[in-house]
Protein backbone atom coordinates (compact mmCIF):
# COMPACT_ATOMS: atom_id res chain seq x y z
CA UNK A 1 0.00 0.00 0.00
CA UNK A 2 2.25 2.78 -1.17
CA UNK A 3 0.42 6.00 -1.04
CA UNK A 4 1.54 9.13 -2.83
CA UNK A 5 2.19 10.66 0.59
CA UNK A 6 4.76 8.02 1.33
CA UNK A 7 6.46 8.58 -2.02
CA UNK A 8 6.52 12.30 -1.43
CA UNK A 9 7.94 11.68 2.03
CA UNK A 10 10.60 9.41 0.54
CA UNK A 11 11.58 12.00 -2.04
CA UNK A 12 11.67 14.66 0.62
CA UNK A 13 13.83 12.43 2.78
CA UNK A 14 16.31 11.73 0.00
CA UNK A 15 16.44 15.38 -0.93
CA UNK A 16 17.16 16.36 2.65
CA UNK A 17 19.78 13.67 3.14
CA UNK A 18 21.57 14.73 -0.03
CA UNK A 19 21.14 18.34 0.93
CA UNK A 20 22.54 17.89 4.40
CA UNK A 21 25.49 15.85 3.25
CA UNK A 22 26.30 18.52 0.68
CA UNK A 23 25.79 21.25 3.23
CA UNK A 24 28.00 19.52 5.76
CA UNK A 25 30.74 18.74 3.25
CA UNK A 26 30.72 22.19 1.68
CA UNK A 27 30.74 23.87 5.05
CA UNK A 28 33.55 21.71 6.31
CA UNK A 29 35.54 22.37 3.17
CA UNK A 30 35.06 26.10 3.05
CA UNK A 31 35.27 26.62 6.78
CA UNK A 32 38.62 24.88 6.61
CA UNK A 33 39.61 27.33 3.89
CA UNK A 34 38.36 30.17 6.05
CA UNK A 35 40.33 28.71 8.90
CA UNK A 36 43.39 29.33 6.76
CA UNK A 37 42.34 32.61 5.14
CA UNK A 38 40.98 34.47 8.16
CA UNK A 39 44.11 34.04 10.31
CA UNK A 40 46.23 34.99 7.32
CA UNK A 41 44.52 38.36 7.36
CA UNK A 42 45.31 38.69 11.05
CA UNK A 43 48.85 37.63 10.39
CA UNK A 44 49.92 40.07 7.68
CA UNK A 45 50.05 37.48 4.91
CA UNK A 46 47.93 36.60 1.90
CA UNK A 47 47.01 33.03 2.83
CA UNK A 48 46.06 30.46 0.18
CA UNK A 49 45.61 32.42 -3.05
CA UNK A 50 47.21 30.46 -5.85
CA UNK A 51 45.01 27.37 -6.03
CA UNK A 52 42.01 28.50 -8.03
CA UNK A 53 40.71 32.06 -7.90
CA UNK A 54 41.46 33.49 -4.42
CA UNK A 55 42.44 29.99 -3.38
CA UNK A 56 38.85 28.79 -3.69
CA UNK A 57 39.88 25.42 -5.06
CA UNK A 58 42.18 24.75 -2.12
CA UNK A 59 39.66 22.62 -0.19
CA UNK A 60 38.92 20.64 -3.32
CA UNK A 61 42.58 19.87 -3.77
CA UNK A 62 42.93 18.97 -0.10
CA UNK A 63 39.88 16.73 -0.22
CA UNK A 64 40.96 14.89 -3.35
CA UNK A 65 44.42 14.44 -1.97
CA UNK A 66 43.15 13.08 1.33
CA UNK A 67 40.84 10.72 -0.53
CA UNK A 68 43.70 9.33 -2.57
CA UNK A 69 46.07 8.87 0.35
CA UNK A 70 46.99 5.47 1.64
CA UNK A 71 45.19 4.54 4.85
CA UNK A 72 47.60 3.13 7.37
CA UNK A 73 46.56 1.09 10.35
CA UNK A 74 49.16 1.03 13.09
CA UNK A 75 50.36 -2.25 14.45
CA UNK A 76 48.49 -3.32 17.56
CA UNK A 77 45.53 -1.08 16.85
CA UNK A 78 42.03 -2.33 17.53
CA UNK A 79 41.05 -2.71 13.90
CA UNK A 80 37.27 -2.48 14.20
CA UNK A 81 37.21 0.45 16.57
CA UNK A 82 40.00 2.21 14.69
CA UNK A 83 37.97 2.16 11.50
CA UNK A 84 34.66 2.78 13.24
CA UNK A 85 35.70 5.89 15.12
CA UNK A 86 35.89 8.33 12.18
CA UNK A 87 32.46 7.20 11.01
CA UNK A 88 31.03 7.51 14.49
CA UNK A 89 32.29 11.02 14.81
CA UNK A 90 30.73 12.26 11.57
CA UNK A 91 27.34 10.52 11.61
CA UNK A 92 25.88 12.05 14.78
CA UNK A 93 27.05 15.44 13.62
CA UNK A 94 25.16 15.16 10.39
CA UNK A 95 22.13 13.64 12.16
CA UNK A 96 21.93 16.70 14.36
CA UNK A 97 21.38 18.83 11.29
CA UNK A 98 18.05 17.05 10.74
CA UNK A 99 16.19 18.97 13.33
CA UNK A 100 17.69 22.41 12.81
CA UNK A 101 15.27 24.91 11.29
CA UNK A 102 17.22 27.05 8.88
CA UNK A 103 14.20 29.16 8.12
CA UNK A 104 10.47 29.06 8.53
CA UNK A 105 10.23 26.54 5.69
CA UNK A 106 13.56 24.71 5.62
CA UNK A 107 13.58 22.06 8.28
CA UNK A 108 13.88 18.34 7.72
CA UNK A 109 12.01 17.17 10.77
CA UNK A 110 10.31 19.47 13.16
CA UNK A 111 10.59 17.41 16.35
CA UNK A 112 9.09 18.38 19.61
CA UNK A 113 12.28 17.24 21.26
CA UNK A 114 14.71 18.70 18.75
CA UNK A 115 16.90 20.37 21.33
CA UNK A 116 17.22 17.20 23.37
CA UNK A 117 18.07 15.23 20.28
CA UNK A 118 20.90 17.57 19.36
CA UNK A 119 22.46 17.32 22.78
CA UNK A 120 22.14 13.57 22.97
CA UNK A 121 23.70 13.06 19.55
CA UNK A 122 26.30 15.66 20.34
CA UNK A 123 27.46 13.54 23.26
CA UNK A 124 28.18 10.59 20.95
CA UNK A 125 30.98 12.42 19.23
CA UNK A 126 32.97 12.37 22.45
CA UNK A 127 32.84 8.60 22.56
CA UNK A 128 34.04 8.45 18.99
CA UNK A 129 37.12 10.48 19.89
CA UNK A 130 37.62 8.34 22.97
CA UNK A 131 37.46 5.24 20.79
CA UNK A 132 39.83 6.77 18.26
CA UNK A 133 42.35 7.57 20.94
CA UNK A 134 42.08 4.21 22.57
CA UNK A 135 42.07 2.15 19.40
CA UNK A 136 45.15 3.86 17.97
CA UNK A 137 47.48 2.09 20.40
CA UNK A 138 49.47 5.27 20.77
CA UNK A 139 50.27 6.87 24.10
CA UNK A 140 49.67 10.41 22.89
CA UNK A 141 46.27 9.34 21.56
CA UNK A 142 45.42 7.66 24.84
CA UNK A 143 46.27 10.78 26.82
CA UNK A 144 44.15 12.82 24.43
CA UNK A 145 41.29 10.35 24.81
CA UNK A 146 41.40 10.65 28.57
CA UNK A 147 41.48 14.42 28.25
CA UNK A 148 38.54 14.64 25.91
CA UNK A 149 36.27 12.71 28.25
CA UNK A 150 37.16 14.81 31.26
CA UNK A 151 36.79 17.99 29.25
CA UNK A 152 33.47 17.14 27.66
CA UNK A 153 31.90 15.97 30.88
CA UNK A 154 33.04 19.14 32.56
CA UNK A 155 31.57 21.36 29.87
CA UNK A 156 28.41 19.40 29.18
CA UNK A 157 27.16 20.38 32.63
CA UNK A 158 27.25 24.19 32.39
CA UNK A 159 26.03 24.02 28.82
CA UNK A 160 23.01 21.94 29.74
CA UNK A 161 22.33 24.09 32.79
CA UNK A 162 22.23 27.14 30.56
CA UNK A 163 19.99 25.39 28.07
CA UNK A 164 17.65 24.21 30.82
CA UNK A 165 17.26 27.74 32.10
CA UNK A 166 16.46 28.76 28.56
CA UNK A 167 13.89 26.01 28.26
CA UNK A 168 12.26 27.42 31.40
CA UNK A 169 11.68 30.56 29.41
CA UNK A 170 10.62 28.96 26.14
CA UNK A 171 8.76 26.07 27.71
CA UNK A 172 9.48 23.87 24.70
CA UNK A 173 12.21 21.75 23.18
CA UNK A 174 10.94 22.47 19.69
CA UNK A 175 13.52 24.60 17.93
CA UNK A 176 11.00 26.00 15.49
CA UNK A 177 8.79 27.23 18.28
CA UNK A 178 11.75 28.65 20.12
CA UNK A 179 12.58 30.82 17.11
CA UNK A 180 8.96 31.79 16.60
CA UNK A 181 8.85 33.14 20.14
CA UNK A 182 11.74 35.48 19.37
CA UNK A 183 10.37 37.03 16.20
CA UNK A 184 10.08 40.77 15.79
CA UNK A 185 13.46 42.43 16.19
CA UNK A 186 16.60 41.96 18.19
CA UNK A 187 15.04 43.17 21.43
CA UNK A 188 12.91 40.03 21.41
CA UNK A 189 15.86 37.69 21.14
CA UNK A 190 16.63 35.51 24.08
CA UNK A 191 20.10 36.94 24.51
CA UNK A 192 18.44 40.25 25.46
CA UNK A 193 15.43 38.70 27.17
CA UNK A 194 16.22 40.48 30.41
CA UNK A 195 12.66 40.16 31.58
CA UNK A 196 13.08 36.41 31.83
CA UNK A 197 16.46 36.56 33.47
CA UNK A 198 18.84 39.45 33.84
CA UNK A 199 21.69 37.01 33.33
CA UNK A 200 20.77 36.09 29.77
CA UNK A 201 23.83 37.74 28.13
CA UNK A 202 26.00 35.88 30.63
CA UNK A 203 24.17 32.69 29.74
CA UNK A 204 24.99 33.28 26.09
CA UNK A 205 28.64 33.82 26.95
CA UNK A 206 28.68 30.60 28.97
CA UNK A 207 27.04 28.82 26.06
CA UNK A 208 29.68 30.15 23.66
CA UNK A 209 32.59 29.15 25.91
CA UNK A 210 31.09 25.70 26.44
CA UNK A 211 30.59 25.36 22.72
CA UNK A 212 34.28 26.11 22.13
CA UNK A 213 35.18 23.50 24.69
CA UNK A 214 32.70 20.93 23.42
CA UNK A 215 33.95 21.26 19.87
CA UNK A 216 37.52 21.06 21.17
CA UNK A 217 38.52 24.37 19.70
CA UNK A 218 41.37 26.53 20.88
CA UNK A 219 41.92 27.76 23.53
CA UNK A 220 40.44 24.48 24.73
CA UNK A 221 41.91 22.20 22.09
CA UNK A 222 43.28 19.70 24.55
CA UNK A 223 42.43 16.85 22.22
CA UNK A 224 44.61 18.06 19.40
CA UNK A 225 47.10 20.01 21.50
CA UNK A 226 49.63 20.26 18.74
CA UNK A 227 52.65 21.32 20.75
CA UNK A 228 51.95 18.75 23.46
CA UNK A 229 50.32 15.67 22.00
CA UNK A 230 51.39 15.85 18.34
CA UNK A 231 47.92 15.51 16.84
CA UNK A 232 46.22 14.11 19.91
CA UNK A 233 43.64 11.44 19.34
CA UNK A 234 44.06 11.69 15.57
CA UNK A 235 47.82 11.11 15.56
CA UNK A 236 47.62 7.72 13.88
CA UNK A 237 44.93 8.53 11.33
CA UNK A 238 45.97 9.07 7.76
CA UNK A 239 44.13 9.96 4.59
CA UNK A 240 40.38 10.25 4.78
CA UNK A 241 40.28 8.77 8.27
CA UNK A 242 41.85 12.01 9.38
CA UNK A 243 39.73 13.90 6.86
CA UNK A 244 36.56 12.66 8.54
CA UNK A 245 37.70 13.99 11.90
CA UNK A 246 38.42 17.23 10.13
CA UNK A 247 34.92 17.33 8.66
CA UNK A 248 33.38 16.37 12.00
CA UNK A 249 35.16 19.24 13.71
CA UNK A 250 33.63 21.76 11.35
CA UNK A 251 30.22 20.11 11.34
CA UNK A 252 30.24 20.31 15.12
CA UNK A 253 31.13 23.97 14.95
CA UNK A 254 28.29 24.55 12.50
CA UNK A 255 25.84 22.79 14.79
CA UNK A 256 27.07 24.64 17.83
CA UNK A 257 26.68 27.94 16.01
CA UNK A 258 23.26 26.94 14.64
CA UNK A 259 21.99 26.07 18.09
CA UNK A 260 23.46 29.27 19.48
CA UNK A 261 21.74 31.25 16.74
CA UNK A 262 18.42 29.53 17.36
CA UNK A 263 18.46 29.66 21.13
CA UNK A 264 19.87 33.10 21.67
CA UNK A 265 20.01 35.10 18.48
CA UNK A 266 16.51 34.63 17.13
CA UNK A 267 17.18 32.20 14.30
CA UNK A 268 16.02 33.56 10.98
CA UNK A 269 14.56 36.68 12.51
CA UNK A 270 15.78 39.99 11.16
CA UNK A 271 17.22 42.28 13.84
CA UNK A 272 14.98 45.12 12.63
CA UNK A 273 11.87 43.14 12.00
CA UNK A 274 12.10 43.15 8.21
CA UNK A 275 12.44 40.31 5.68
CA UNK A 276 13.10 37.34 7.97
CA UNK A 277 14.56 34.33 6.25
CA UNK A 278 17.39 31.94 5.60
CA UNK A 279 19.91 34.71 4.89
CA UNK A 280 19.65 36.12 8.40
CA UNK A 281 20.11 32.70 9.87
CA UNK A 282 23.24 32.11 7.80
CA UNK A 283 24.64 35.56 8.54
CA UNK A 284 24.26 35.03 12.27
CA UNK A 285 25.61 31.51 12.13
CA UNK A 286 28.68 32.44 10.12
CA UNK A 287 29.31 35.42 12.34
CA UNK A 288 29.48 33.00 15.24
CA UNK A 289 31.77 30.72 13.21
CA UNK A 290 33.99 33.70 12.52
CA UNK A 291 34.15 34.41 16.24
CA UNK A 292 35.16 30.81 16.85
CA UNK A 293 38.00 31.08 14.36
CA UNK A 294 38.94 34.50 15.70
CA UNK A 295 39.26 33.17 19.24
CA UNK A 296 41.34 30.25 18.06
CA UNK A 297 43.98 32.39 16.43
CA UNK A 298 44.12 34.99 19.18
CA UNK A 299 44.66 32.99 22.33
CA UNK A 300 47.23 30.49 23.52
CA UNK A 301 46.03 27.17 24.86
CA UNK A 302 44.91 26.89 28.46
CA UNK A 303 46.34 24.33 30.78
CA UNK A 304 44.21 21.32 31.40
CA UNK A 305 43.57 22.12 35.04
CA UNK A 306 42.86 25.71 34.09
CA UNK A 307 40.23 24.40 31.75
CA UNK A 308 38.62 22.22 34.39
CA UNK A 309 38.85 24.96 36.98
CA UNK A 310 37.09 27.33 34.62
CA UNK A 311 34.26 24.88 34.20
CA UNK A 312 33.79 23.66 37.74
CA UNK A 313 34.63 26.82 39.64
CA UNK A 314 33.29 29.54 37.39
CA UNK A 315 30.95 28.36 34.66
CA UNK A 316 28.93 25.84 36.67
CA UNK A 317 28.26 28.20 39.60
CA UNK A 318 27.26 30.94 37.18
CA UNK A 319 25.07 28.60 35.18
CA UNK A 320 23.43 27.36 38.38
CA UNK A 321 22.89 30.90 39.56
CA UNK A 322 21.35 31.69 36.22
CA UNK A 323 19.08 28.67 36.52
CA UNK A 324 17.88 29.63 39.98
CA UNK A 325 17.47 33.25 39.03
CA UNK A 326 15.49 32.41 35.94
CA UNK A 327 13.22 30.09 37.85
CA UNK A 328 12.76 32.71 40.56
CA UNK A 329 12.01 35.53 38.15
CA UNK A 330 9.60 33.41 36.17
CA UNK A 331 7.72 32.46 39.30
CA UNK A 332 7.72 36.03 40.56
CA UNK A 333 6.87 38.04 37.46
CA UNK A 334 5.33 35.63 35.03
CA UNK A 335 3.48 33.30 37.40
CA UNK A 336 4.64 30.30 35.46
Amino acid at each position, binding site marked *: MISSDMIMELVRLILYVVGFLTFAALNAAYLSLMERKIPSWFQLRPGPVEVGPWGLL*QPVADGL*KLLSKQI*LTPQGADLILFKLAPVMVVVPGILCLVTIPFSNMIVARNFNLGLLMIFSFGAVGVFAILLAGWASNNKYSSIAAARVVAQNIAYEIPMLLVVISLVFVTRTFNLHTIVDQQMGGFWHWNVLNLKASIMMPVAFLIYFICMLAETNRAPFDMVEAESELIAGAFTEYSGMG*FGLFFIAEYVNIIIGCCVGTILFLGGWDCPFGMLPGLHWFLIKMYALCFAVIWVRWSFPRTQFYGLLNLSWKILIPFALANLVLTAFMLKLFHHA
Partner: protein
Amino acid sequence: MEKQVEVPPGLIHFAMLDDVLNMARANSLWPMTFGLACCAIEMMATGASRFDMARFGCEVFRPSPRQSDLMIVCGTISRKMAPAVVTLYDQMPEPKWVLAMGNCAISGGPFKFPGQYGIVEGADKLFPVDVYVPGCPPRPEALIEGILKLEEKLRGKRCFPTVEAQ
Protein backbone atom coordinates in the same frame (compact mmCIF):
# COMPACT_ATOMS: atom_id res chain seq x y z
CA MET B 1 57.90 -0.16 13.38
CA GLU B 2 55.32 -1.74 11.14
CA LYS B 3 56.25 -3.17 7.81
CA GLN B 4 55.81 -0.79 4.92
CA VAL B 5 52.86 -1.99 2.87
CA GLU B 6 53.61 -2.12 -0.80
CA VAL B 7 50.95 -0.23 -2.71
CA PRO B 8 50.01 -2.33 -5.73
CA PRO B 9 49.91 -0.48 -9.03
CA GLY B 10 46.43 -0.07 -10.43
CA LEU B 11 45.35 -2.55 -13.12
CA ILE B 12 43.51 0.09 -15.04
CA HIS B 13 44.71 3.64 -15.33
CA PHE B 14 42.44 6.58 -15.90
CA ALA B 15 44.58 9.22 -17.48
CA MET B 16 42.16 12.04 -16.79
CA LEU B 17 41.58 11.02 -13.19
CA ASP B 18 45.29 10.67 -12.64
CA ASP B 19 45.80 14.17 -13.96
CA VAL B 20 43.18 15.56 -11.63
CA LEU B 21 44.54 13.66 -8.66
CA ASN B 22 48.07 14.79 -9.37
CA MET B 23 46.89 18.35 -9.69
CA ALA B 24 45.16 18.03 -6.32
CA ARG B 25 48.24 16.49 -4.73
CA ALA B 26 50.53 19.10 -6.19
CA ASN B 27 48.44 21.87 -4.70
CA SER B 28 48.01 20.34 -1.30
CA LEU B 29 51.46 19.31 -0.15
CA TRP B 30 51.27 19.19 3.60
CA PRO B 31 54.76 19.16 5.05
CA MET B 32 55.70 17.51 8.30
CA THR B 33 56.72 19.68 11.27
CA PHE B 34 60.21 18.38 11.30
CA GLY B 35 63.24 20.53 11.91
CA LEU B 36 66.69 19.07 12.12
CA ALA B 37 68.98 22.08 12.28
CA CYS B 38 69.65 25.54 10.87
CA CYS B 39 67.47 25.10 7.79
CA ALA B 40 64.44 24.60 10.02
CA ILE B 41 64.57 28.30 10.91
CA GLU B 42 64.51 29.20 7.22
CA MET B 43 61.63 26.76 6.79
CA MET B 44 59.79 28.65 9.52
CA ALA B 45 60.65 31.91 7.80
CA THR B 46 59.21 30.50 4.59
CA GLY B 47 55.97 29.82 6.39
CA ALA B 48 55.95 33.28 7.96
CA SER B 49 54.45 36.48 6.70
CA ARG B 50 56.92 37.73 4.15
CA PHE B 51 57.30 34.60 2.08
CA ASP B 52 54.13 32.76 3.06
CA MET B 53 54.11 29.21 1.79
CA ALA B 54 50.36 29.30 2.41
CA ARG B 55 49.87 30.87 -1.00
CA PHE B 56 50.54 27.49 -2.57
CA GLY B 57 48.46 25.61 -0.05
CA CYS B 58 51.41 23.96 1.63
CA GLU B 59 51.46 25.72 4.97
CA VAL B 60 49.52 23.01 6.80
CA PHE B 61 52.43 21.73 8.87
CA ARG B 62 51.23 18.45 10.28
CA PRO B 63 53.07 17.28 13.38
CA SER B 64 52.13 13.66 12.72
CA PRO B 65 53.83 11.88 9.81
CA ARG B 66 50.58 10.01 9.16
CA GLN B 67 48.95 13.14 7.84
CA SER B 68 51.79 14.68 5.90
CA ASP B 69 52.69 14.30 2.26
CA LEU B 70 56.01 16.04 2.14
CA MET B 71 59.03 15.53 4.29
CA ILE B 72 61.31 18.53 4.19
CA VAL B 73 64.64 17.21 5.42
CA CYS B 74 65.96 20.50 6.68
CA GLY B 75 69.29 20.01 8.30
CA THR B 76 72.04 17.59 9.10
CA ILE B 77 71.01 14.00 9.71
CA SER B 78 73.30 12.66 12.39
CA ARG B 79 73.95 8.95 12.60
CA LYS B 80 72.12 8.89 15.91
CA MET B 81 69.11 10.52 14.24
CA ALA B 82 69.14 8.43 11.06
CA PRO B 83 66.97 5.53 12.36
CA ALA B 84 64.38 8.01 13.59
CA VAL B 85 64.32 9.81 10.24
CA VAL B 86 63.86 6.53 8.40
CA THR B 87 61.05 5.59 10.78
CA LEU B 88 59.33 8.89 10.13
CA TYR B 89 59.65 8.34 6.39
CA ASP B 90 58.17 4.87 6.76
CA GLN B 91 55.30 6.20 8.84
CA MET B 92 54.17 8.55 6.12
CA PRO B 93 51.40 7.17 3.95
CA GLU B 94 51.84 6.86 0.21
CA PRO B 95 52.07 8.88 -1.95
CA LYS B 96 54.86 10.81 -0.24
CA TRP B 97 57.69 13.04 -1.32
CA VAL B 98 60.97 14.11 0.14
CA LEU B 99 62.61 17.47 -0.29
CA ALA B 100 66.23 17.70 0.79
CA MET B 101 66.72 21.24 2.00
CA GLY B 102 70.24 22.53 2.39
CA ASN B 103 73.65 21.13 1.73
CA CYS B 104 73.65 18.88 4.79
CA ALA B 105 70.61 17.00 3.59
CA ILE B 106 72.06 16.81 0.09
CA SER B 107 75.55 15.60 0.83
CA GLY B 108 76.55 16.28 4.41
CA GLY B 109 77.50 19.81 3.48
CA PRO B 110 80.11 21.55 5.58
CA PHE B 111 80.18 18.70 8.06
CA LYS B 112 81.53 16.16 5.63
CA PHE B 113 85.25 15.63 6.04
CA PRO B 114 87.49 12.60 5.83
CA GLY B 115 87.23 10.66 9.05
CA GLN B 116 83.90 12.11 10.15
CA TYR B 117 82.07 9.95 12.64
CA GLY B 118 78.74 11.58 13.22
CA ILE B 119 76.61 12.38 10.20
CA VAL B 120 74.85 10.71 7.32
CA GLU B 121 76.21 12.15 4.09
CA GLY B 122 72.95 13.07 2.45
CA ALA B 123 69.33 12.12 2.91
CA ASP B 124 69.41 10.05 -0.28
CA LYS B 125 71.57 7.53 1.54
CA LEU B 126 68.47 6.70 3.56
CA PHE B 127 65.51 7.09 1.21
CA PRO B 128 64.73 8.45 -2.24
CA VAL B 129 64.75 12.22 -2.53
CA ASP B 130 62.59 14.07 -5.04
CA VAL B 131 63.90 17.61 -4.93
CA TYR B 132 67.25 18.98 -3.79
CA VAL B 133 67.43 22.60 -2.67
CA PRO B 134 71.04 23.68 -2.28
CA GLY B 135 72.18 26.41 0.05
CA CYS B 136 73.55 26.72 3.54
CA PRO B 137 70.85 27.44 4.46
CA PRO B 138 68.77 28.01 1.31
CA ARG B 139 66.85 31.22 1.22
CA PRO B 140 63.07 30.96 1.67
CA GLU B 141 62.64 31.79 -1.99
CA ALA B 142 64.75 28.76 -2.80
CA LEU B 143 62.55 26.52 -0.67
CA ILE B 144 59.44 27.84 -2.39
CA GLU B 145 61.10 27.21 -5.73
CA GLY B 146 61.87 23.68 -4.54
CA ILE B 147 58.22 23.12 -3.73
CA LEU B 148 57.20 24.51 -7.12
CA LYS B 149 59.71 22.13 -8.70
CA LEU B 150 58.02 19.29 -6.86
CA GLU B 151 54.66 20.45 -8.17
CA GLU B 152 56.20 20.50 -11.62
CA LYS B 153 57.41 16.96 -11.10
CA LEU B 154 53.95 15.86 -10.03
CA ARG B 155 52.01 17.53 -12.79
CA GLY B 156 54.51 17.24 -15.59
CA LYS B 157 54.28 20.93 -16.31
CA ARG B 158 54.97 24.15 -14.53
CA CYS B 159 52.12 26.51 -13.85
CA PHE B 160 54.07 29.35 -12.30
CA PRO B 161 56.40 31.61 -14.26
CA THR B 162 60.10 31.33 -13.69
CA VAL B 163 62.03 34.44 -12.78
CA GLU B 164 65.26 34.94 -14.65
CA ALA B 165 68.27 36.04 -12.68
CA GLN B 166 69.22 39.61 -13.38
